[in-house]
C-alpha cells in the first residue's frame, strides 16, 4: 500500500510538471481535438504534440504494456492510480488508438517476437495509426461468414475483397484484417488474421457519410493486395480465436465510453436549460428520468469497478465484457436522448456558433452506433444467454 501511495505522489508530481495547461482543459470540439497519431496526423496544437511525446517517452500511452515493447510496465494497480491521477488533474488522453485498445493486447498474446518488436513501440509512440478490417457487406453480426479472400502465393498472400464500416480507414496507416484462407473448412476454421500497410498497392478507401453529418468510416477495397507471409499473426486458419480475443478488448473499451465524460452532469445541463422551481427541475417528469439515468450511470460505474476486482480475483466470467458492452452502450444512448430533451430546441440548431455546429445533436446521433459497433446489443445478449446463463440452443 505504501509503495502505491509513493507511486501516486510521484505520478501526480510528474503530471503536474509535464501536462501542459491546455491539455488539462475539457475538449471544446472533442472530435477535432483528440489525438490519434499516425504518419499523417496534424497536431491540433504544440501542447498536444508535447503531451504525446512526454507520455510516450514513459510508455504511459500504454501504461500496462511491458516496457520491453515501449509500454509503461506498470502493474494493474499502478495503471489505475495513473488513470485516477490523470482524471483528478483533468488531463486529456494523450493518444487514442485502435492500436492501444485492440491490436496491442492481441499482439501481446498471439504475435511473434518480431511482430511485437516491430509494431508495439510504434503504437505506443503514436507513429502508426491502425484500423480494423472485420466487417463486410455480407458479414456483420455473423462476422465469421466473411468472404475476403487471401490466397497463398508462396512468399505472400494475395488479398481480394471488400470491408465496410472500417472506422478511419482513410486516415489509418495499417490495417488488422480478417481474411478467409480456407474456403473448404467450416466458417470459423478458415479465417486468418493479417496485418498490412494501407499504402500497399491495391488498397483503396471510400468514406461513408453518417447521420451525424461526419464521415468517420469507409468502405475499404482490396484488389490483388500482396501481403508478406511474415504479417500473418498466429497460425493460418486459426485467426478466429484472435479475432474474438480482440473483440473482448474492443467491448470493454466501448462499454466504458459513456463514462469518461468529465464535463457537466446531465442534472446541471438540464437545470441550466430548463430552470428550477422550489429547488427542483421545472420539468418534473424529465427530472425523474434524469434522476434514474444518473443513478443507473453511477451504479454502472461501480459495476465496472467490481468487474475489475472480479477479474483480479479470478472470479469474472470470461463473457463478462458482453454485459459491460451491452449495458454501457445502452446507458450512453439514454444519456444522450435525455441530453437532447434537456436542451430542447436549442440543442437542435444544426449549424452556427450558438450550438457549436449542432455538437449535441451530432453527438447524440453518433451514440446510436455504440450499440451496433463492436457487436450489437442483441449479439451481446445472445452471448450472455448462451455463455453465462447456459440457456439451450442459444
Amino acid at each position, binding site marked *: 500500500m505504501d509503495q502505491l501511495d509513493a507511486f501516486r505522489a510521484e505520478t501526480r508530481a510528474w503530471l503536474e510538471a509535464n501536462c501542459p495547461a491546455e491539455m488539462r482543459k475539457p475538449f471544446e470540439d472533442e472530435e477535432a481535438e483528440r489525438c490519434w497519431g499516425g504518419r499523417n496526423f496534424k497536431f491540433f496544437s504544440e501542447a498536444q504534440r508535447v503531451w504525446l511525446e512526454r507520455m510516450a517517452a514513459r510508455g504511459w500511452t500504454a501504461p500496462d504494456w511491458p516496457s520491453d515493447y515501449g509500454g509503461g510496465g506498470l502493474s494493474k494497480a499502478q495503471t489505475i492510480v495513473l488513470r485516477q491521477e490523470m482524471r483528478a488533474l483533468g488531463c486529456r488522453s494523450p493518444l487514442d488508438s485502435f492500436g492501444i485498445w485492440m491490436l496491442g493486447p492481441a499482439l501481446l498474446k498471439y504475435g511473434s517476437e518480431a511482430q511485437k518488436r516491430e509494431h508495439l513501440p510504434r503504437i505506443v509512440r503514436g507513429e502508426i495509426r491502425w484500423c480494423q478490417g472485420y466487417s463486410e457487406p455480407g458479414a456483420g453480426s455473423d462476422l465469421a461468414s466473411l468472404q475476403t479472400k487471401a490466397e497463398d502465393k508462396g512468399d505472400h498472400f494475395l488479398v481480394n475483397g471488400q470491408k465496410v464500416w472500417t472506422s478511419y480507414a482513410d486516415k489509418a496507416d495499417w490495417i488488422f484484417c480478417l481474411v478467409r484462407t480456407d474456403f473448404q473448412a467450416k466458417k470459423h476454421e478458415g479465417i486468418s488474421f493479417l496485418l498490412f500497410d494501407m499504402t500497399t498497392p491495391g488498397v483503396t478507401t471510400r468514406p461513408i457519410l453518417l447521420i451525424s453529418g461526419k464521415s468517420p468510416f469507409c468502405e475499404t477495397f482490396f484488389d490483388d493486395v500482396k501481403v508478406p507471409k511474415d504479417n500473418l499473426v498466429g497460425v493460418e486458419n486459426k485467426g478466429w480465436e484472435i479475432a474474438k480475443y480482440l473483440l473482448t478488448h474492443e467491448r470493454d473499451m466501448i462499454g466504458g465510453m459513456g463514462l469518461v465524460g468529465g464535463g457537466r*452532469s446531465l*442534472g*446541471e445541463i*438540464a*437545470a441550466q436549460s430548463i430552470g*428550477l422551481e422550489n*429547488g*427542483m*427541475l421545472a420539468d418534473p417528469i424529465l*427530472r*425523474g428520468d*434524469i*434522476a*434514474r439515468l*444518473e*443513478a*443507473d450511470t*453511477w*451504479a*454502472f460505474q*461501480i*459495476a465496472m*469497478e*467490481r468487474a475489475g*476486482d*472480479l477479474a*483480479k*480475483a479470478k*472470479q469474472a466470467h470470461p463473457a463478462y465484457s458482453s*454485459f459491460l458492452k*451491452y*449495458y454501457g452502450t445502452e446507458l450512453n444512448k439514454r444519456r444522450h436522448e435525455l441530453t437532447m430533451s434537456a436542451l430542447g430546441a436549442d440543442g437542435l440548431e444544426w449549424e452556427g456558433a450558438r450550438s457549436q455546429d449542432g455538437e449535441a445533436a451530432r453527438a447524440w446521433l453518433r451514440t446510436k452506433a455504440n450499440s451496433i459497433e463492436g457487436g450489437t446489443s*442483441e449479439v*451481446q*445478449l*445472445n452471448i*450472455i*444467454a448462451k455463455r*453465462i*446463463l*447456459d*440457456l*439451450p*440452443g*442459444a
Partner: protein
Amino acid sequence: MALVLTEEQNLLRDSARGFIADKAPVAHLRHLRDTRDATGFSRDLWREFADMGFAGVIAPEAQGGLGLGPVEAGVIMEEIGRNLTPSPFFATALVGASALKAAGGPRAEALLAKIASGDLLLALAVDEGAKHRPGAMTTQAQRSGNGFVLNGAKSFVVDGHAADLLLVAARLGDTVDVFMVDPKAAGVSVERTIMTDAHNAARVTLDNVALDADAALGAGERGAAILETALNVGRAGSAAELCGVGAEAFARTTAYLKERKQFGRLIGEFQALQHRAAHLYCELEIAQAVTLKALQALAAAPDKAGPLVSLAKARACAAADLAVREAVQMHGGIGMTDAVDIGLFMKRARVAQELFGDERFHADRLARLRGY
C-alpha cells in the same frame, strides 16, 4: 477496497447459506403462514441464530457479539432473501443494534448483550403514512418534568408486534430523537399487521406515553444522526435482502427455462425470453455491485455513506422488482399458483421495496443531493 468478499466474509456466507437453507427454506415461511403462527416467525430458530452468532453479528465482542459490520450483516440478509426467511434479524440484529451502537453508553451496551444472546427483540418505529417519508414525521415528544411525553401513530413497524422494546422516532423541539418505549407501558397500543408476504409489522399508537429522561437514545442531541445511521444500515441491509430475493427468483426462472417445453422446444430456446433473461442478469449484477459498495461505505464511514446507500436501495429495488415480475411471467400459469414459490418471491420483493424507501424515494434523494 476491492468489491469482492474477503476470505472471512466468504466463510461467513457459506455458513449462513448452509444454515439458513437448511433450517428456514421457503417451506418454513409457508408453514408459518398456513398455520397462522401466533408470532409469524420461529423463536426456536431465532435462538439458533443467536447460537450461530448471527443475532449479535454487529454487536461488539465485549457484549458477546461477533463485532462485525454492515458487510457481514448484508451477507446474512442476502441469504435471508434467498430463502424468504421471516426472522427478527433485520429489525433487531441489524437496525436495532445499529441504533444502539450509534448511541453508545452502558445502557446501550447492556441491551446489545441481550440482542446477541437472543433475549431481546427490537422494532424501529419511523413511518407514519402510506410511504416512507421520515422528513414529514409528526410524532411528537414533549419534555415533561424530568422526562418526556410521547404522542403519535406509527405504521409499518417491522416486528413491532413481537418486540420487547420499541425504538420510536419522534420530533423533539426542532430536532429528532429516538425513544425507547416499553410496548406494555400505559398509552401504548400495538396492532399486529400481517403483510402481503406473510411477514409481520405493526401499527403503534402512542397516547400520552410517559418516558424517563434516559429514554432518549440521542439525549436530545444526537438523535437525528442515530436515526439516520439506523435507517441507512437498514436500507443497505434491505438492498442485500432484495439482491438475494432477485437472485433466487432468477435462478429458479432460468432453471425453468431449461426444463419446460412448448412447440417441441425448451422455452429457453426462444430468443425473446433469452434476451430478457440476459438483461435481467445485467441488472442483478449491478445491484450486487452497488449493494456491496454501500455496505463497505457504511463500514468505513457511516456518516458519509448516505448517497451510496440510496443508490444501492434504488438499484436493488429495481432489479428485484424486474426479477420477480419476469419470474412470474416466464413461469406462465404455474407462476400464478400459490403452490409454486415464485409468487412468494414477488410478494416479499414488493414489501421489501417499500421498506425504508422505494426506488423513487431514493432516486429523488439523489437528485436533491445533486441540486436538481
